[in-house]
Structure formats: structure tokens, C-alpha cells
């Protein structure tokens, strides 16, 4: 696993790399072929948008991939008022769990990644290897005992049960170590030491600023991991008003699939799904340079 290049960290500036690899010109045929492939990736999302605009009966009576009677406002109303507006709780919960876990995970990973990259200390490499190995632990191997331990500490069915385990991001530490090794010049640290700055001051006042791009990447991925998390909140939480979106929507879906007069739920589940994917899609659109370069950092130095 050798790194070929990248003396400099793969920051967002790479996106503006010169058009060095333009070859003989662009191919319309290849573009059309790729656009056809793109249909596969975008059609389900298009279907979801279309289906969200339909009343329950229209879902069954009209063709799925095109619009029928516009019922989006009514569907949204149903999503936000069904079961006394529990959906709003789910959105807030998802947001709180994701933001708190994300900020926490990225702070912890930033400090630790920098320490692993820039200090040689007894046990440092062993700790780092241990952390990396944790990537392979099956989620059940952690979640089941964590559940039992939390139950003993009366932490189950509280937000902490979902947030605390999400604070550990082994991949985040790995990413930060790779990034910090390049982004923070040793000479800079040396110069600050000569000037008499303490190690903590060096970290907080000088180094941290240099690590921001990678920290945001780790934050974004921790946010996504927490936003998508299903297994952990599923086992930890009982009260519907504590659920995050995936657990809540899955419950609605189970209710609608079970039938028994709750058929009207189909359009509610579908519209709720659309509403719940919008924040993350927007985040990915606006933060493109962070996730693209961040994924690159991990890959180049793998």
C-alpha cells in the first residue's frame, strides 16, 4: 500500500488542477453512454419526487414515473401532523444526534490524529493500530454489549445512548493523521517551540487552523454516519418521540405494509422519505469540495 505522490495534502485546491489530462477532445458518444447510466442512479430519486406529489389512490391508479393530480401540500400536511406531529420530533432528533455526534467525533479525531501524526510517544503506534483494527468489528459485537451496559447505567432510551457510541470515528482519526502529517510542517511546530509556545498553545492557536479542511471532512462523514444510523437507535430507543428519522419512517412503513386500514400511509411514508433526504442532499451539494478532497486524502495515502 504505497502512496505514489501527494507531497502536498489533497485539499480542495486540487479541484482546480490544470487541464493537463485533456486528450484528443471530448466524446459525445461516451457522454451519452454515461448519461444513460446516470438514469439508473437518478430514476429512483425522480420516482420518489413524483410519488410525493400523489394522493394515495393515485399511487395505484397512475403511472409511477409521471405526475398525476398534484397532492404535495396535502401529503406534507399529513407527514407533519400524523400521530400528533411526531415527524417533527424525528427531524429535530436526527439533526441533534447528527450535529452533536459529528462535532464531538471530529473534535476528538482532530486532536488524536494530530497527536499520532506529529508526536513519537510510547504506545502511540500501538494505539493507532488498535484504533484502525476497530473498523472491522461487527456492529452487533459492539451494540449488544453496549446496550446491556447502558441498560445497567439507565442510559438506554435517552439521547446519550445514540450519541455516545457515535463519538468514536476510527476512520476519522486515520484521515486526520494522514492529513496532519502533510499539512502541518515540522518546521512550523519547531519555530513555535523556539518562541516559547507551549504544546497546547501550538495546537490550539497554530495547528488547528491548518487542520480545518480535514476536520470539516471528518465532521461531514460523522454527520452522515449518524444521520443514516439505524441499528443503534433501533435497539437503544423505545419512545417514538426520541426516534431519529430512519427508525421512525421504518416504523410507519411497517404499519402501512401491515395494512389494516392504514393504507393511506403509503403517500405519507413516501413524502416523509423525500423530506428526510433533502437536508443531506443539500449538504453534499454545498460542501462538495470537502467530501471530494477528503475521500481523496484517504485513498491516496492508503
Amino acid at each position: 500500500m504505497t502512496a505514489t505522490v501527494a507531497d502536498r495534502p489533497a485539499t480542495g485546491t486540487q479541484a482546480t488542477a490544470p487541464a493537463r489530462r485533456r486528450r484528443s477532445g471530448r466524446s459525445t458518444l461516451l457522454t451519452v453512454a454515461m448519461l444513460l447510466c446516470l438514469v439508473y442512479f437518478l430514476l429512483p430519486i425522480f420516482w420518489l419526487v413524483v410519488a410525493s406529489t400523489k394522493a394515495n389512490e393515485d399511487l395505484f391508479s397512475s403511472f409511477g414515473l409521471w405526475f398525476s393530480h398534484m397532492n404535495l401540500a396535502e401529503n406534507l400536511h399529513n407527514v407533519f401532523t400524523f400521530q400528533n406531529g411526531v415527524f417533527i420530533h424525528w427531524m429535530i432528533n436526527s439533526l441533534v444526534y447528527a450535529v452533536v455526534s459529528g462535532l464531538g467525533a471530529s473534535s476528538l479525531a482532530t486532536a488524536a490524529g494530530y497527536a499520532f501524526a506529529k508526536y513519537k510517544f510510547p504506545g502511540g503506534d500501538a494505539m493507532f493500530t488498535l484504533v484502525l483494527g476497530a473498523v472491522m468489528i461487527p456492529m452487533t459485537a459492539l451494540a449488544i454489549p453496549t446496550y446491556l451496559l447502558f441498560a445497567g447505567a439507565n442510559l438506554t432510551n435517552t439521547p446519550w445512548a445514540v450519541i455516545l457510541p457515535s463519538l468514536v470515528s476510527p476512520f476519522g482519526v486515520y484521515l486526520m493523521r494522514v492529513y496532519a502529517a502533510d499539512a502541518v510542517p515540522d518546521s512550523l511546530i519547531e519555530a513555535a517551540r523556539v518562541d516559547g509556545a507551549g504544546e497546547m498553545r501550538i495546537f490550539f492557536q497554530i495547528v488547528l487552523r491548518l487542520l480545518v479542511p480535514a476536520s470539516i471532512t471528518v465532521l461531514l462523514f460523522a454527520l452522515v454516519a449518524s444521520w443514516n444510523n439505524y441499528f443503534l437507535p433501533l435497539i437503544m430507543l423505545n419512545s417514538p418521540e426520541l426516534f431519529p428519522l430512519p427508525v421512525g419512517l421504518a416504523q410507519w412503513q411497517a404499519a402501512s405494509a401491515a395494512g389494516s386500514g392504514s393504507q393511506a400511509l403509503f403517500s405519507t411514508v413516501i413524502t416523509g422519505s423525500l423530506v428526510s433526504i433533502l437536508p443531506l442532499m443539500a449538504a453534499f451539494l454545498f460542501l462538495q469540495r470537502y467530501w471530494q478532497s477528503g475521500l481523496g486524502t484517504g485513498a491516496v495515502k492508503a
Partner: protein
Amino acid sequence: MAAYALSMPFMVTFILMVAVPLGYAGYLSLFKKQLIGGISFVGMDNYARALTDPSFLSGVGRMALFLVIQVPVMLGLSLLFALILDSGMLRLQKFIRLGVFLPYAIPSVIATLMWGYLYGKDFGPFAQLAKSLGLPAPDFLAGGNVLFSIMNIVTWGFVGYNMIVMYAALRSIPAELYEAARVDGASEWRVAWSIKIPAIKGALLLTTIFSVIGSFQLFNEPNLLRVIAPAAIGQDYTPNMYAFQLSFVNQDANYAAAIAFLLGIVIMAVSYGVQLTANRREKAL
């Protein structure tokens, strides 16, 4: 000292949230809850039981089948798309890159709900199309098909993610490495095969190992599809589903812990095997 101070917050959290639960799971796996006599130490009995438990073995087998089909298809597509993007021969390059990646922004639970409706016979567009053509509706959720339907959901969600990882690695290859080959008239395919792909083997290995880890841990997709296809997907369909059921339905956390540990060993062994194969191939070249 500073090194410890900086790494301590993470390491303490790591110990509390990873090491301690893992140790506790290991401890639990050595005991058994009996109807009479309470909890007793049984050594490796739970492991021995798991190794002959058809539910566990068939789950692992199913995940292995999933792995050998889905991972090559997904990573092959990712690599192909990454190479096409990197060739600079596309128009609408940015739009296409973002479009392929977009499914990654959709939580797997919601992706599964969505695909579940698409697969469905009630108002799924495939069933509607078949009906309008007078054909029988395809049954994506039947016993023999459902594994492939799950593969499709995972592939749909992760091709773009892996594509971006590979694309970023491709972009960091110094152009000098293949400019000469191009001057000599090598085709784009030849450049890709002989220069670009070997140059990003680190990224290929990384994506393969992460995909292996993810495959064996499959839970969300089958667990949700079970709601609409209970006949095709049992409670022990994947090892993680089985451990979940043992622990929270059967209240047998001891045996569940042993199952989870064994699954971890399988994952480690296969990941190690992948790495070993990659290294050996590298030497052979």
C-alpha cells in the same frame, strides 16, 4: 506529555465505547443462561454451537455469495466510471460525477423503503410496465431473487462513493507518468490498464476491504425488506440479523455475543486474505 493530552479524549472514549463493550461481549460469550440454575460458565460451548448452527452458517454463506457477486460488480462500475471521468473525454463531467454520487446521500433505510416500493407489485413502475405490456409482473422479492434485489440497492448506493475515492486517487497520479505513453500513441484503454490502474492499487485495496467489511455486516436492507417479503427473508437471513434476533427477541445475549465474535473473526480473516492476495500479486508483477 502533550501527545497523551491530545490523544486522551479520543482514547478514553474509544476504550469506553469500543474496548469495554467488546471485552464484555467476549466475557458474555463464555456463559450461558439456563432455565434452572441461572447463569453458568460454559467455556467455548457457545462457539461450538455456532459452528454447527445452520442459521449462522447459512447466513455467513449468503453473505459470502453476496460478496463475490456484488463487490466485483460495484467496484468494477466504480472503477470504469472513475477512469472515464479521469480521461477528460466527457462533457457535463461535473453533473455526471455528482449524479452518480447522489444516492450515497440517501440513508440506506430510506433507499430500501424506496426500492421496496419500486420492486413492489402494487404500484411499482416495473410491475405497471409489465402489466401494460400484458406480461406477468416480475417478482423481485421472491425467495430466489431477493438477494439480487438487495445487491442492487447496495450497488446503487455505493458505486458513486467508491467512484469518488478512485477518481481522487487517479487525479493524484502525476501526468508525466502517462504523458509519454500517450505521445507514443498508446490508447486510453492501454494507459488505463497499464499505468493508471496499477498506480491506484492502494485506493482499490481500501475500497475492496471496506466493501468486504460492509457486506458481511448487512442488516438494514434485508431487515426492512423483511416487512414486505417475510416469506423470502427469515429472521436469520444475515449473521447480524440473527445476532439481533437472538439478543433482543430470544433474550439470549450470551449466544448472540458468540455469533458476533465469530462474524468479526470471519471479517478479519477475509480482509486479511484480500490484503495478502493483493500484496502477492504486487510481487508477482
